[in-house]
């Protein structure tokens, strides 16, 4: 099926692709909550467009995950019919939107992560992931331009906007540790060349984030030890509420189509 399948077990690749796909899916669903509620029409369009791109990434990744798994599940089965503990996104993605500033902080942190991850994944030994990465990374650059631009405006804006994004940064920063916490699955993928080393991604991410925070006159919070394991399916309470809304239609009317 793919070059990587000779090197890693299908089950491991399946779980790894789910991690990537669920990050896009859950963050895209969160951003979708802004539709009709944004501070201005331009931001409504901006956030909705980014959400669409993320759902597009999720579709490609979850379709691939289903093929790797080989049990006949398609993108919709995987997106809508899994249980809470089967979602493998890092829990930063599921954190509530809060105010516009908090959404922007979460977005900058994840956009920069996706950018550095996917830029490197274009060289993946897995051809399919390399192609998805090459396609997605072009769009992610625009996402970061949007979110980074807003973080600078808010951080270097009024006392009120500065205080709000600084406090959002303090609240969300601890969750970033999970993005780079390398476990056995991450190691397996890096060893086989499917994914980049997370320590390399982290180094580049930190430089990029520091540059944006500097321009935004924001203080980078200190790293603290964490015990988040969204990547292993242990989530915050917020995911359950999201899934209840997201899955409602498919659970109530199985197989419903537009």
């Amino acid at each position, binding site marked *: 099926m793919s070059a990587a399948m000779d090197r890693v077990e299908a089950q491991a690749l399946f779980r790894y692709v789910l991690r990537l796909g669920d990050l896009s899916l859950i963050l*895209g669903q969160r951003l979708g909550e802004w539709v009709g509620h944004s501070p201005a029409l*331009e*931001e409504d*369009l*901006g956030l*909705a*467009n*980014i*959400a*669409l*791109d*993320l*759902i*597009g*990434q999720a*579709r*490609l990744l979850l379709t691939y995950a289903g093929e790797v798994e080989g049990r006949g599940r398609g993108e919709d089965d995987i997106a809508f019919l899994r249980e809470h503990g089967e979602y493998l996104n890092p829990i930063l993605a599921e954190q509530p939107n809060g105010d516009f500033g908090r959404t922007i902080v979460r977005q900058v942190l994840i956009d920069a992560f996706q950018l550095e991850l996917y830029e490197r994944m274009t060289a993946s030994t897995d*051809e399919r992931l*390399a*192609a*998805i990465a*090459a*396609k*997605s990374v*072009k*769009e992610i*650059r*625009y996402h*970061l*331009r*949007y979110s*980074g*631009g807003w973080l600078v405006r808010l951080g270097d804006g009024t006392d009120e906007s500065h205080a709000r994004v600084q406090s959002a940064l303090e609240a969300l920063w601890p969750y970033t540790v999970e993005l780079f916490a390398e476990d056995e699955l991450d190691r397996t993928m890096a060893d086989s060349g499917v994914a980049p080393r997370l320590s390399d991604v982290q180094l580049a991410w930190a430089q990029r984030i520091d540059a944006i925070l500097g321009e935004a006159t924001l203080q980078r919070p200190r790293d603290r030890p964490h015990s988040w394991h969204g990547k292993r399916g242990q989530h915050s309470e917020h995911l359950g509420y999201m899934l209840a809304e997201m899955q409602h239609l498919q659970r109530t009317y199985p197989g419903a189509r537009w």
Partner: protein
Amino acid sequence: MNAVCIDNHDSALAWQALAAVEDPEIPALSIVDLGLIRYIEPRPDGTLEIGLSPTYVGCPATEVIRRSAELALRDAGVGACVVTQVLSPAWTSDWITAEGRRKLESYGIVPPERSVANMRDVLRGDRPVACPRCQSVDTETLSQFGSTPCKALHRCRACLEPFEYFKCI
């Protein structure tokens, strides 16, 4: 030999049919103008394979384009064919044809800057985009995301008119 002649005939017919398929969001342009058709090739079994690239991964127009393409091929009397999604190499705005750029401009949308060679620079912003109405370069970006994922919203400070810019990607 005979089969090859039929294939060539079908390919030409297919290109012609697809050149008439409008983009659902920018009807001034065809999907061939946008550079979305990557190849049209006969398979060993005689089926014609059409390689179609999506512009943006989440663009809702992608499904519509695929269906319109299939319909157009059927209506044109092209034999058995299959539309395949091509992700790699990823679609770039550099593939919009010269004709496509001209049509964009006359439709009032500023065509993308040429060459996406160094996308890292794109993070910091484009060069100023000239207003399609008064040609002033005194313009500002209102939003990186306009009415569709592929367009950004700008405004001219000279004539005060808003306009769209087809993003370089």
